[in-house]
């Protein structure tokens, strides 16, 4: 048994090494992956991510691909199950023509797959996984175009204290990694800022009825209700039911809520005066994004906040592959190198993208908006001070 294991270790090492060192001519084909939960609970935002990345791929292909080779965009559905996420990672890693992956958007799946993508030097650019620890583990292949929870959490705490001047704060968060971590970071920030009258509670995403927990919030009589949920529809229900119950606290939602249709329109007036934060300026106000927005809305319907970063991430990835392909063949190492050199990339998000050495977005700012009429009005920007 021991001997077989030695033999097998040797063989595995051979397989791994050949995998690591490989480079292939461009003409053999170019694959890019997209890992996410395209079925199940979180299918809506994930499909928006996939479709947006698809637009980017289609645009490249319409321009003739990379050196005349059409790019193939491969879906890897993990159904929100980490074990399946690991399968997807292995599948992508084993595909010799796979040069980069957009995703995974969920922090827990990103965590489960870090080592696999990492040991194969396969670039992953996530558009939503915001758990701080992900970039603190020394992996070189992991990048994100979204800001980390700790940056947003601290900025939101500053906003609540300095701009909204709140003394009593109620924080409701959905029980998923993103919201849970956002809540923790905000609470830590509030405490640091000396706000101690805090109530914290959890909600179940997609439950459609938050009246019991909101009734509890009402009894607490907060100045601000920070409603941390992933998607806009959940927050539309939150703001609507809060209003219905007569809660007069300021409603403050997350980046997911910056969605005209699913938040402002859907809440039919209840969202007037509510605040949300976002990691980018308003996508509709950015001229560079107009083309993308039009394409998306024509093909797939209304856009929420999850699509633009995915379009951006795919473009960054394809630009890097394009550079790597200049000499006629591509290796993952090259792609990784070019992605990490991304500096001041001007895309559609309204701010230049630069990756810091850890793979995080450099200088992550948080933008705050207020609902006014049928639109979001920019209020202020926080950068940690």
């Amino acid at each position, binding site marked *: 048994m021991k001997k077989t294991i030695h033999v097998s270790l040797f063989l595995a090492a051979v397989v791994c090494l050949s995998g690591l060192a490989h480079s292939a001519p461009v003409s053999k084909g170019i694959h890019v992956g997209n890992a996410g939960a395209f*079925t199940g609970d979180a299918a809506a935002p994930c499909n928006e991510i996939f479709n947006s990345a698809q637009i980017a791929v289609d645009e490249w292909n319409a321009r003739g691909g990379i050196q005349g080779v059409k790019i193939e965009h491969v*879906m*890897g559905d993990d*159904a929100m199950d*980490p074990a399946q996420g690991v399968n997807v990672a292995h*599948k992508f890693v*084993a595909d010799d023509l796979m040069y980069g992956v957009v995703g995974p958007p969920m922090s827990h799946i990103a965590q489960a797959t870090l080592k696999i993508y990492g040991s194969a030097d396969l670039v992953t650019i996530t558009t939503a996984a915001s758990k701080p620890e992900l970039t603190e583990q020394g992996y070189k292949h992991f990048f994100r175009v979204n800001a980390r929870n700790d940056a947003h959490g601290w900025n939101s705490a500053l906003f609540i204290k300095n701009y909204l001047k709140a003394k009593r704060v109620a924080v409701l968060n959905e*029980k998923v*990694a993103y919201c849970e971590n956002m809540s923790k970071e905000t609470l830590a920030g509030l405490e640091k800022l000396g706000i101690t009258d805090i109530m914290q509670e959890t909600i179940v995403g997609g439950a459609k009825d938050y009246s019991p927990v909101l009734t509890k919030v009402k009894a607490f009589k907060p100045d601000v209700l920070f409603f941390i949920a992933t998607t806009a529809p959940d927050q539309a229900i939150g703001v609507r039911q809060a209003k219905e119950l007569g809660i007069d606290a300021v409603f403050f939602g997350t980046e997911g809520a910056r969605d005209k249709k699913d938040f402002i329109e859907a809440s039919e007036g209840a969202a007037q005066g509510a605040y949300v934060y976002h990691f980018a300026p308003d996508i509709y106000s950015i001229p560079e994004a107009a083309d993308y927005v039009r394409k998306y809305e024509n093909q797939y319907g209304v856009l929420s906040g999850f699509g633009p970063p995915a379009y951006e991430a795919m473009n960054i990835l394809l630009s890097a592959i394009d550079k790597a392909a200049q000499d006629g063949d591509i290796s993952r190492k090259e792609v990784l190198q070019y992605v990490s050199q991304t500096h001041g990339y001007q895309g559609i998000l309204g701010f230049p993208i630069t990756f810091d050495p850890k793979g995080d977005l450099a200088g992550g700012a948080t933008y705050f908006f207020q609902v006014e009429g049928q639109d979001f009005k920019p209020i202020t920007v926080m950068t940690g001070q």
Partner: protein
Amino acid sequence: MNEPSRSISLPHANPLTGRPANRLLVFAVVAAVLAIAPLSMPNNYWLRIYSMTGIWVMLALGLNVVAGFAGLLDLAYVAFFGIGAYIFALLSSSQFDLHLPFVLVLPMAAFITMGIGIGLGATSIRLKGDYLAIVTLAFAQIFKLLLLNLDTPINITGGVNGIFGFDPINIFGLRIVSPVAYAYLIWLCALTVTGGSFRLKRSRIGRGWEAIREDELAAEAMGVNTTWMKLMAFAGGACIAGAAGALFASFQDSVFPNNFDFPQLVIVYCMVILGGLGNITGVILGAVILSILPEFLREYGAYRMMSYGLILIVLMALRPQGLMGEFGFRRKTQKRPDKDETGRLRASTDLYYDGQAPAATKRYVKGARIMLELQNITQDFGGLKAVDNLSLTLYEKEILSIIGPNGAGKTTLFNLISGIYPPTSGSIYFEGADITGLKPHQIVRAGIARTFQNLRLFSQMSVLDNAKVGQFCRTQAGPLAVLFHLPRHQKEEAQTEEIAKEALGLFGARLTGYRFAQQAVFLSYANRRRIEIARAMATDAKVLLLDEPSAGMNPQETAEITEFIRRLRDAFGYTLLLIEHKLNVVRTISDRVIALDSGVKIAEGRYEEVAGSEQVIEAYLGRKKGR
């Protein structure tokens, strides 16, 4: 005993029970495949799928113990998988800075999970079928919510962020880090579980479980301690799931609540059902198919799940017994002894007389010792007294018949004696000992066995296994004896087989030879009645309670069974209490007759006395005339 039946070798339902040469060949092929497979995978992706398949095989086999063998709808199964995984995660990581070695953590995960399984089983064991499913489903939901929420006030489970970064497995210096090493370790475990499953299935434990699955009440009435056996099934399933969980956690190097949710439960169930409940090779096949198939569909998102749903519906409609169903690998076709050389069927009755053993040398007659005594028994069903203050004495080696119109309380009387209902008041003594309120299986152990009016055989089990269940209460082998194939267990098995064949052999070629391996459900009504009697005899009972043994039989068969019942006493010395409607049967064989009406004894004595009693004619025969 009739010799011909001995010479016909039994067909076997699985490859591991074949003749030694075949068995070795199967072992060799399996070993070779498992040794070569990890090295011949095209890349790490397929190697991972291969290892995950091993984990799924373990999981499916564990569920097969609970749901397949014992028929318990355990929807908390995937929670046990999670418990094993989290135990590993907590004991082998920096979470609490515990870094116990894997050789210790793996058994701990298995046994702690088993303990929790027993705990859950003990609270819900008396619930039947769907209710058990609901309680276990609720338990699984609670488990998941606890995983999600036990990160505050003190961080135990890591909440939504899970736990990751575990110590590498180190088995006495052998480090398991590479994917190939994991593949070997996982499949070694899967192989162990497979071997254990086969051994369990072919043992008294496996038969006890299957009996419960087929008919829980009949199993209890045939001496199977159903409560204990169900607990054991829960424990077995949980133990395997726990071990699989620990392996999985280490393999994934992280655990999250999403790993142990409803979708995973659905998949394991699909594997077991696809393969065929209780069929080990089938379940393995199901696990392999359902672990590999989705990988080819991963790029199709919702269509993948849609086709899953459709496959499930179509499969259930077309092949409800699963892919393998009850078919084994090598079911040999047997020569049917009821066909003569020209291929014509011979009447089964002729065969019966052909196969008759020579007349027994010893003749038993009614003795003076009291075998069974009922004192003032009353059974009150919420105001309706099915049996009212009834006293009855049964002497050793006596044939006592109970007659009475429908609803007279005859079957209730049997249910009282066999312990299915505890009497509202009164006492029952067997050989001088008080057996009132004992559970049915304890009463069988004491020496009273019964048959049922409306046949309660274990339909999907073979004729021989039906009879073997009778010996359950006379054997002791526990799970360890079975898994390690201890000599004690082998001796018991040999004895069980002999006794079961002997009991069936009394009915000649009707229940022997190729019949041994047939499923009970395929036999004729009369033959199924005969199996019930053989099954009761195989319990080594002293007293047999026969509930309408001749029901559904034609005149010739009735004459035959009457003769047989008489022989049970005359040649074998059984004491018999029977309920019978056919009065010529009663007249022919009874030493004494008791007539019941509305739960009250209205006459007792020799047949002629009872049949002549005015009260009986009025209550029983008279009413019949008036109809």
